[in-house]
C-alpha cells in the first residue's frame, strides 16, 4: 500500500445521482476505514488537532479505528463534538485539520473527515451510547437557536451538569443542518435526527416554535423564567439581494427560500404539501457552498443549471469537493459574470437575465482581486428561474428587542473573549457573531461560550444552585 495515497471512497454515479436526493458520498467500509486509518503517522506534535476548531484529538480516534476499535473511536469523538456525523460530512477539512496533516507535505493528507464520519456512523448503526453527564448542578441555561453553535453549547453544558433548554424558531431543530444543507450532502432522518436525539439523551430540552424577540424575550427568559445565563446562537439567516431591477419578479428566489422549501419542507417529495418552482433553465447567482447546494438541488428537480459568479474558478468560496461534484453532475459555470438586470415577461415572470463580463483588478480588503466590469460586455441569456445565493446576515430581531445588546455595523452581536455580550450573563456565538461562516466554526464558538458560561455562573453563584 502507498502511504501517500488515500484509500478511495465510493460515491454514487454522477448520472444516476443527478436525479435523486440520496447521499452522494457512500462512506468507508470497515476494511477501508481501517486501511485509511493506518496511514496516520500518529505524530507527536499532531498539527491536525490545533487546526480543528473544537480541538478533537484526531490521532487518538484514528488509532482506535486502525485497530478495529470503532466504539472507542466514537467515545473519543464524543468528548469533543456533539455532531461528528455532521462534521465528518460538511466541514471544509481541506482548510482545517487535513490542511496541516504531515502526510499532506509529500502526498495526500489522511481523510480525517471521512474517518470521523465512519466512526460516528458506525456508532449510530450499532447503537453505541456516547453521552456521559456530570451530576446536575441546578443552574438553568437557555440556548437560542438549535443550529451547530447552539447544539454544541447545549451539549457541553449538559455534560457539565447544567439544566439546558434550547429555544428554536422553526418546527424542526438543527438550523442550517435541516433547512440549508440538502439531503444529498447530509441526510436528515439518518444523520441529523440521531445526533439531535443524542443531545436529548444528555438531558437537553428542545422547545420548537419559539421565536425569541416575539414569543419570548431575552429579558423574560432571565427575569421571569429563571435562567441563570443565555447563549444566543441565532445564526445569520437574513438573505441578501442585489438591489437590481427585476428582483421581485416571479421566479426569483433567495437560496434560503429555495432550500428551505426543498430541505425543511420536503417539497421534492410528492407526499408533502409545500410547492417548489423550478423552471427549465435556472441561474444561481453566487459561488459559495449555498450556491452549489441550490444549483445541485435545482438540477435534481429537473432543470438545466448555470452558476453565475463574478470571479474565477480559483476564487470560488465553495468547497473543492462540492464544486467537483457539481461539475460532474453537469452544472454549467459562467465565471467573471455579474447580473445587472432580471427581465420579466408581461405576466410578471422571469424571462431572461442581463449580465456583464468582469475582469479581475487590484486586490480588495479581503485580499481577493476585485472584479471590475468590462464596458460594453453586456449580454442577455434566457432563464425562467433565478436563485440569489449572495450570502446572509444576522437577523436583527433579537438585538432590536433586547435593550443594551451591542451590535457592530454588520449587525453582528459583539462579544468578549469568553463569548459574553454587552449584557451580563448573555453570551453569543456562531454566525450571529461572525456573520455567515462554517458549521465547524460555529461549533467552536458554541464550545468556547459553554466554557465562558460555566466560568461566569460558578464565579457568580458558586458550584451549585441553592435548592
Amino acid at each position, binding site marked *: 500500500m502507498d502511504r501517500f495515497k488515500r484509500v478511495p471512497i465510493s460515491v454514487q454515479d454522477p448520472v444516476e445521482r443527478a436525479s435523486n436526493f440520496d447521499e452522494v458520498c457512500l462512506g468507508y467500509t470497515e476494511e477501508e476505514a481501517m486501511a485509511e486509518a493506518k496511514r496516520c503517522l500518529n505524530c507527536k506534535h499532531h498539527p491536525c488537532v490545533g487546526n480543528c476548531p473544537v480541538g478533537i484529538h484526531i490521532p487518538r480516534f484514528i488509532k482506535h479505528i486502525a485497530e478495529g476499535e470503532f466504539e472507542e473511536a466514537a467515545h473519543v469523538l464524543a468528548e469533543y463534538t456533539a455532531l461528528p456525523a455532521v462534521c465528518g460530512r460538511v466541514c471544509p477539512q481541506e482548510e482545517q485539520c487535513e490542511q496541516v496533516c504531515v502526510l499532506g507535505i509529500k502526498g495526500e493528507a489522511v481523510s480525517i473527515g471521512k474517518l470521523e464520519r465512519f466512526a460516528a456512523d458506525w456508532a449510530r448503526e450499532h447503537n453505541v451510547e456516547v453521552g456521559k453527564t456530570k451530576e446536575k448542578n441546578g443552574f438553568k441555561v437557555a440556548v437560542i437557536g438549535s443550529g451547530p453553535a447552539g447544539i454544541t453549547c447545549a451539549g457541553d453544558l449538559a455534560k457539565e451538569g447544567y439544566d439546558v433548554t434550547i429555544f428554536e424558531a*422553526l418546527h424542526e431543530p438543527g438550523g442550517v443542518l435541516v433547512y440549508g444543507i440538502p439531503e444529498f450532502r447530509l441526510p436528515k432522518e439518518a444523520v441529523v435526527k440521531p445526533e439531535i436525539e443524542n443531545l436529548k439523551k444528555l438531558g437537553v430540552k428542545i422547545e420548537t416554535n419559539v421565536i425569541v424577540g416575539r414569543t419570548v424575550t431575552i429579558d423574560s427568559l432571565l427575569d421571569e423564567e429563571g435562567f441563570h445565563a443565555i447563549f444566543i446562537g441565532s445564526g445569520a439567516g437574513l438573505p441578501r439581494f442585489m438591489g437590481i431591477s427585476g428582483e421581485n419578479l416571479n421566479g426569483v428566489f433567495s437560496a434560503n427560500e429555495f432550500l428551505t422549501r426543498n430541505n425543511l419542507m420536503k417539497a421534492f417529495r410528492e407526499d408533502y404539501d409545500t410547492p417548489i418552482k423550478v423552471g427549465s433553465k435556472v441561474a444561481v447567482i453566487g459561488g459559495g457552498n449555498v450556491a452549489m447546494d441550490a444549483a445541485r438541488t435545482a438540477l435534481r428537480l429537473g432543470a438545466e443549471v448555470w452558476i453565475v459568479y463574478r470571479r474565477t474558478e480559483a476564487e470560488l468560496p465553495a468547497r473543492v469537493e462540492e464544486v467537483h461534484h457539481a461539475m460532474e453532475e453537469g452544472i454549467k459555470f459562467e465565471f467573471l459574470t455579474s447580473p445587472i438586470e432580471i427581465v420579466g415577461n408581461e405576466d410578471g415572470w422571469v424571462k431572461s437575465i442581463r449580465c456583464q463580463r468582469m475582469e479581475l483588478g487590484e486586490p480588495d480588503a479581503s485580499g481577493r482581486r476585485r472584479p471590475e466590469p468590462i464596458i460594453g460586455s453586456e449580454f442577455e441569456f434566457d432563464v425562467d428561474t433565478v436563485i440569489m445565493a449572495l450570502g446572509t446576515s444576522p437577523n436583527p430581531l433579537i438585538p432590536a428587542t433586547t435593550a443594551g445588546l451591542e451590535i457592530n455595523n454588520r449587525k453582528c452581536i459583539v462579544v468578549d473573549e469568553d463569548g459574553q455580550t454587552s449584557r451580563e450573563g448573555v453570551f453569543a456565538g456562531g454566525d450571529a457573531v461572525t456573520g455567515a461562516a462554517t458549521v465547524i466554526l460555529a461549533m467552536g464558538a458554541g464550545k468556547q461560550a459553554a466554557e465562558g458560561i460555566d466560568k461566569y455562573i460558578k464565579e457568580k453563584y458558586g458550584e451549585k444552585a441553592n435548592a
Partner: protein
Amino acid sequence: MYKIVEKKDLAPNIISMDILAPRVANSAQPGQFVIVIVDEEGERIPLTICNYDKEKGTVNIVIQAMGSSTKRIVALDEGDYLKDFVGPLGRPSDYVNEDIEEVKKQKVLFVAGGVGAAPVFPQVRWFHEHGIDVDVIVGAKTKELIILEDEIKEVAGNLYIATDDGSYGFNGMVTGLIEELVVNQGKEYDLVISIGPMIMMKFVCLLTKKLGIKTVVSLNPIMVDGTGMCGACRVTVGNETKFACVDGPEFDGHLVDFDEALKRQAQYKKEEIELAKRGQEKTCTCQHGGVHNG
C-alpha cells in the same frame, strides 16, 4: 402539538378554532399573525391572530377551507391537535405603541373583506378597551358569508355591512360603502385600516387616496418561515423591498405596489391546483394557503 380546545362554524367553509398555545397567547398583540402546520406533510400557513385569551392560554384563528392544508385543518375536531403553531409574528399595529392621547384624536374606519373580519375584530376590541369608538365596514359576497357580526357590533361604534349581491346591508362592494359614508353622508375619517383579499385592499387604497384618507393595509403575501429568513413575502413599499413577515404585515397602503403583490401571490397557483387534484379536490380558487395568507 397544540390542542384545539374549541371549534365553531362561522359560515360555510369558514371555521373558528381556539388553540391552546400559552406562550403565543401571552405575547400576542393586535396586527400580528401565527404560522400553523397541520400535520407532518403540511405546509407552513400564515393566519392572522383573531383573538387571544392570556388567562386560558388560547389563541383564536379563523380559517377558510381553500387549499389542501386548510381543508385538513378544517376537518379537525375539538380535542385534536395541530402539529405546529408558532407566533406571534410580525409587528403589532402601529397604534399599539403610539401615545394613546394621540390615538384618541383620530377617527378610524376599519374595512374588512370576507374572513378579514376575523383579524379586524381584535383590533376593534383593542380600541374599545381603550375607550375609543371606531366605525367598521364588513363586506362579503353574500349574507351567509358575513362572520362575527355580533361580536364586532358589541365593540364597534357603528358597524356597516355590505354584500356584493345585496342580500344583506349595503348592496355592493366595500368601496361603494366607503363612498356612501364619506361622500354622501359626509362622515370624516383620519385613518382607514383595511384587511381582506389583496384585490380588495388595492381598490380601497385607490379610493382612499382620492379621498385623502391615510390607509393602513395588512398584506397577505406567500410566506414560508415567517421570521425573515427567506424573503418569499417580499413586497415593494415606497420603492423599497420589504419583508412582510418582519417589516409588516401592516404597511401604508398608498405606498404598496399592489400589482406586483398580486402577481407574486399567484406564483404557485398551478401547483395548488395540482395539489388539490392529488387530494381529489375539485377546484382550488385560493391564494396559496389560508385566510390571511399563504
